[in-house]
């Protein structure tokens, strides 16, 4: 059974009777999915089209944040791989190096993640990136996971969550349980970068409208100018982006802005170079430091410093984090 977004829909036999699975199938109008033993039977194949797999997570449900991820000052920083892969096709995304193809896998046992979280919450305040390996907001109509996370965060004082997104939907925020610990983080790129390298994703202006809707509903909004991509006219386009932000949002209501130039683990970059031999981003001769490829210091400092100054100039006193913070 196919769907506009997916060629085929597969369901692991052990996840077949889950409430979440049945809800997703209903929303997709799928009466006859293909039943499989293990999600990896489909997910690990290299192919062009995109399938959807509904499965149980057989591994870890919470991972400690990687050194190149921003923790925003949170000591106990985790991410949850509740959904693997994304509906958007961004050329620079680490998911291209992480997963073999475009298939998306939704782990329907979200409640198990919440149970694991409870143990941690008893010990210390926990900060979770819930939309780390995907864009949860973009598939909210299918999963309802954002609503589930927001409800969880509202009811659990020791839990904060970040939902990173490029989604332009403005209609969902007023329907979600509001909490100042449920942070919607909008990734922004200059128009030129979005057009060339963020296939399938809404444009930056539409994302800013969505950010404004999230602010109006009472959610803290974070802006992520990350990754910054080194291109010929980078100063012009990133300078323009800072002005566009200031002209589109109430900057006093922005929780913070994170900036970071492109960086990626060595293995993911190797995979990306194989997959994309003509990619300006993948084929850049990065410097490898501690297992992570990044721009040479001169470029890094110049780009991140420029962006910081441009944001200070246009957005005033908003808090700015860089990925080394």
């Amino acid at each position, binding site marked *: 059974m196919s769907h506009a977004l997916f060629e085929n829909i597969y369901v692991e036999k052990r996840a077949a009777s889950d409430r979440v699975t049945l809800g997703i199938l209903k929303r997709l109008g799928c009466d006859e999915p293909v039943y499989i033993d293990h999600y990896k039977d489909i997910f690990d194949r290299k192919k062009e089209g995109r399938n959807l797999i509904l499965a149980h997570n057989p591994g870890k449900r919470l991972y400690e944040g990687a050194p190149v991820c921003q923790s925003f000052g949170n000591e106990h920083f985790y991410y949850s791989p509740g959904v693997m892969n994304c509906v958007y096709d961004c050329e620079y995304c680490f998911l291209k190096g992480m997963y073999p193809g475009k298939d998306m896998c939704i782990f329907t046992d979200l409640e198990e993640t919440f149970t694991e979280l409870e143990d941690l919450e008893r010990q210390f305040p926990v900060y979770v990136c819930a939309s780390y390996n995907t864009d949860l907001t973009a598939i909210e109509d299918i999963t309802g996971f954002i609503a589930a996370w927001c409800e969880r965060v509202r009811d659990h004082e020791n839990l904060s969550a970040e939902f990173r997104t490029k989604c332009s939907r403005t209609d969902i925020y007023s329907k979600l349980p509001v909490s100042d610990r449920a942070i919607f983080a909008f990734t922004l790129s200059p128009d030129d970068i979005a057009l060339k390298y963020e296939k399938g994703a809404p444009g930056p202006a539409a994302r800013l409208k969505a950010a404004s809707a999230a602010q109006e509903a009472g959610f803290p909004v974070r802006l992520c100018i990350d990754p910054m991509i*080194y*291109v*010929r*006219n*980078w100063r012009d386009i990133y300078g323009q982006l800072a002005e566009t932000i200031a002209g589109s949002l109430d900057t006093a209501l922005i929780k913070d802005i994170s900036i970071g130039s492109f960086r990626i683990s060595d293995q993911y970059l190797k995979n990306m*170079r194989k997959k994309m*031999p*003509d*990619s*300006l981003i993948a*084929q*850049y*001769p990065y410097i490898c430091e501690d297992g992570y490829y990044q*721009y*040479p210091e*001169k*470029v890094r400092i110049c780009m991140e410093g420029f962006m910081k100054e441009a944001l200070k100039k246009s957005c005033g006193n908003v808090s700015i984090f860089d990925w080394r913070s």
Partner: protein
Amino acid sequence: MGEIKNTEIFDILSSEMELSFSMKNRLRQICIYADIAGIDMESIRKELIDKGVLPCTDKNGSKKALAEIYDNVACAF
């Protein structure tokens, strides 16, 4: 390992330096990127010849030349 579309400049530069295996790989990646980014490697080479950096016959000189080529390409914008 990626593929260089225009191998000529890589071959010429390789012949003008003493490169170890890893340095050769580095140069190859620089050439691949320069090709995609539209950076003129030939004019960079000519500039280094004028400065007396190229050609070089020893490892140290080649390291210095490779570093200059890298700076010119990776920090071109």
